[in-house]
Each structure stands twice: as structure tokens, then as C-alpha cells.
């Protein structure tokens, strides 16, 4: 793949600009990689919620990427997952306290989803896939690019849901009764009846389903032109894995016990292996 070596959009690989546009467009976490779906669904009831959540995530992502990249040679491989979690959780707490102090209204509106940035797959995924292997400056810009890609995507989703479901745009009434648009167009707009379901929970699922269907179509079109689409996600999440057959697990368990007698077991690799190993099988299946 010549594109891979060259980097995103023809920029030189691993420069700040390349990382920035890679996160924003080429590997957009929400629209292309399709990770971090929980906040995408939960906080996009309005554009301003999406924007705030996106910026908070960007802040955490950029700084945790930078710190993890600085510490990547100090952290032993076996305890890297807990170490990453501590770094990420510290920055999330920072964001939480700052938001509580300066934008208490937004903090209340987003509620539990602010502390839940800790378990956002995007942040952990970038720490694992990029920051733990690269220098601080590209890692930092990778975080900013990915974060802003996420922000743009969820702000736009929020904008649509708000507009269809409530007729407002950033809390300004556009459609429906009391439209701010003047004249005949305004009269026309004011006849709109907001489809309330779009700002309710079911609306989130519907909007995301349509969005993924559109991205699937884009993917098919790209495939027809013979372009590489291996980066595209399938709309799952980080733990979208095939569960093994319980009987096989029993056999494996017996085999493991035998091995354990011979050598002492380590604790961590278990978690890691379960997370990574079966994913490719699954994604291939979905791509068909």
C-alpha cells in the first residue's frame, strides 16, 4: 500500500499535519473506524451537548496520548493497561473538576458520561495503537486530530437530531412554531411539526443505523473503484468479538491447567489476548 507509507492525504507520515488530518478525515473514529459508540448515541440529543462532549474528549485524548508517549519506555509491557487507565482517568478527573467549576450547566446535562470518557474505546485504542509506539509530538497531534474528528462527527449528528426532533439548531428555533426565520420562508418553516422521537433514545439508534448504512454504501462504492477499505469499521465496539464455544473452552482449560503445572502463569496476557485475537475473523465476516 503506497498510501500507507506516504501517510494521509499525501502528507509525510507521522508529521503533525498528517496526524491531524488522518484523525479528522481519513481515519475518523466515529464515521470510519466506528469506535466509541456509547457517547455517540448518548450525548447527541443536541448539537451543543455533542460539541462539549467532543471537546472534553479531545482534551483528554491529546494530553493522555502525549503523557503515554512520554512514558512509553518506562512502563513495562505487562502492566501497560492499568498504567494507561490511570493516566487517562487522571485527565478525565481534571476535565470533570474544571467543567463542574466553570460550566456547571453542561456538566449536569452530560452527567455520568463525562467520567465515562475513561472507558471510551477511542482513547484507549489510540494509546494502545499509536501513542505507545510513537514520539510525543505526532502522538499529541494524533490525539487532537482524532478528538476533533470525533467532535465534528458527534456535533453534526447532534445538529441533525436536534433539528429534526426539536426544530432547533444550537437552541435557536429554525423549524416549527416560533421560528426566527423572517418572512414567507419563516411562515413555511413554522408549519413544521418536530418528530420528537429523534431526540428520544430510539432516535439515536435510528440515526446511527442510517449513518452506518450510508458509510457501508460509501465503502461499497470505494471497493468498486478498487480502493483499499480495510480501515473501515463495522459499527461495532472494542469488544465486538466472537464468543468461543463453551465445550472448547473446557478443553482449553484442561490444557491450560496442564501447562500451568509446568510453568507459572502470568495474569495480564489473558485480557489482552481475548481483546485482540478473534476480531479479524469477525470483521471479515461483516465485510461480506
Amino acid at each position, binding site marked *: 500500500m503506497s498510501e500507507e507509507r506516504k501517510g494521509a492525504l499525501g502528507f509525510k507520515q507521522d508529521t503533525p499535519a498528517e496526524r491531524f488530518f488522518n484523525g479528522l478525515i481519513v481515519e475518523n473514529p466515529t464515521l470510519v473506524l466506528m469506535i466509541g*459508540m456509547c457517547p455517540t448515541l448518548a450525548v447527541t440529543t443536541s448539537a451543543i451537548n455533542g460539541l462539549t462532549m467532543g471537546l472534553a474528549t479531545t482534551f483528554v485524548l491529546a494530553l493522555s496520548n502525549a503523557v503515554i508517549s512520554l512514558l512509553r519506555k518506562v512502563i513495562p509491557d505487562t502492566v501497560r493497561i492499568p498504567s494507561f487507565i*490511570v493516566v487517562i482517568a487522571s485527565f478525565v478527573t481534571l476535565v470533570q473538576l474544571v467543567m463542574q467549576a466553570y460550566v456547571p450547566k453542561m456538566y449536569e446535562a452530560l452527567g455520568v458520561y463525562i467520567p*465515562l470518557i475513561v472507558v471510551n474505546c477511542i482513547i484507549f485504542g489510540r494509546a494502545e495503537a499509536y501513542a505507545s509506539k510513537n514520539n510525543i509530538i505526532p502522538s499529541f497531534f494524533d490525539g487532537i486530530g482524532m478528538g476533533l474528528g470525533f467532535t465534528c462527527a458527534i456535533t453534526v449528528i447532534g445538529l441533525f437530531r436536534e433539528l429534526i426532533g426539536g426544530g432547533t439548531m444550537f437552541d435557536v428555533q429554525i423549524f416549527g412554531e416560533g421560528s426566527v426565520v423572517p418572512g414567507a420562508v419563516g411562515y413555511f418553516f413554522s408549519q413544521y411539526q418536530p418528530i420528537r422521537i429523534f431526540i428520544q*433514545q430510539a432516535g439515536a*439508534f435510528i440515526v446511527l443505523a442510517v449513518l452506518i448504512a450510508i458509510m457501508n454504501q460509501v465503502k461499497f462504492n470505494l471497493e468498486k473503484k478498487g480502493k483499499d477499505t480495510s480501515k473501515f469499521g463495522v459499527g461495532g465496539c472494542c469488544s465486538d468479538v466472537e464468543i468461543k464455544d463453551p465445550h472448547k473452552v473446557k478443553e482449553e*482449560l484442561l490444557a491450560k491447567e496442564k501447562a500451568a503445572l509446568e510453568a507459572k502463569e502470568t495474569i495480564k496476557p489473558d485480557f489482552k489476548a481475548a481483546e485482540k485475537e478473534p476480531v479479524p475473523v469477525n470483521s471479515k465476516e461483516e465485510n461480506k
Partner: protein
Amino acid sequence: MTNTIVGLLSIMITASLVNNVVLSQFLGLCPFLGVSRKTETAFGMGMACVFVISLASLVTNAIYKFILQPLDLSFLQTIVFIMVIAMLVQFVEMFLKKFVVSLYQSLGVYLPLITTNCAVLGVALNNVTDGYSLLESTICGFATAVGFTIAIVILAGIREKIEFNDIPKPFRGMPTVLLASALMAIAFTGFSALR
């Protein structure tokens, strides 16, 4: 006494049906979408969640009440909770592997996936925000996980039914599952009258 029982019952109904963890709070979506291919595995995942979430609710609430609050360290709750949950899952896995092998055989495969399940952390944080007592938070955790099990088993049933249907190509896979969840979410809003 009756009052406490009624209170606990209302917590249970609210946590499992009215505020269903997946369909109304969007927590734990990853296993909900990822492990709902077969009813059997979905049920196993649900049971593993019941086990871990109840235990995690109890432990995190105890830590908050007896360590963080007296020492005035409650701002550390996010960091402490996520670490405790990660350790707890590891510990439960090791414990089951060693002492309750039959349970490990049925639940073991799901345990590593639960660390990344945001429902566990979400419930722990909600318990603190709502100011629940130890018993109340354990019940709330249990009921939340039961709600998760209900949702994931229903979705798995639907997915098994529609697996061989002729669906337009772009909608195959995840979009159809999401549309099914949307219909389930609409159905579950009916429970809000119970509140």
C-alpha cells in the same frame, strides 16, 4: 420495614425496566451489539454481568463510603473505581478458575470483556450520585444487570430470527441490529408509566 422493601422494589423496577441500562442510558452498548448473535451466549454474558456488576456496586460503594468520603478524597472516585473494577474482574476470574470451575466454564469467556463494559463504571458512579446505601446500591447493580440481560437476550432472539432475511445490502449487519434496538427502545419507553 415495609417502607424499605417498597423502596428497594422501586429501585429494582426503575433500574431494570424504566431506566434500562442499554436502551435508555446507552451504557454497555459494546457487548450489547457484539455478543448478541446467539441467545445462549447472550444469556451467558448477561449472567456474567449480573455477577460482576452486583459485586462491583457493593465494593465500589463500600470504598466510597468507608475510605474516600472520610478522607475527603471523593474527587478521586473515577480513578479509584476504574482501577477497582479492573482488579475485581481479574480477581473474580482467578478465583472462579481456581475454586468454582463449573461456573468459570460457563462465565469465564465473558469476564475479560466486562472490564471494558461501561455499564459497570456507570452503575458505580450513579450509585454514588444518587446517594444509595450499601444494600440499595447492590440491589441497584443487580437490577441494572438483570435489565441488561433482558435487553441482550431479546435482541439475540430477534437477530436469530432475522438472520436469513433479505435485507438491502448497506443495511446488512450492524444497521439492522441498531434498527431492531430502536424498536426495542420504543417498546421500553412504555415502562416509564411504571415510575
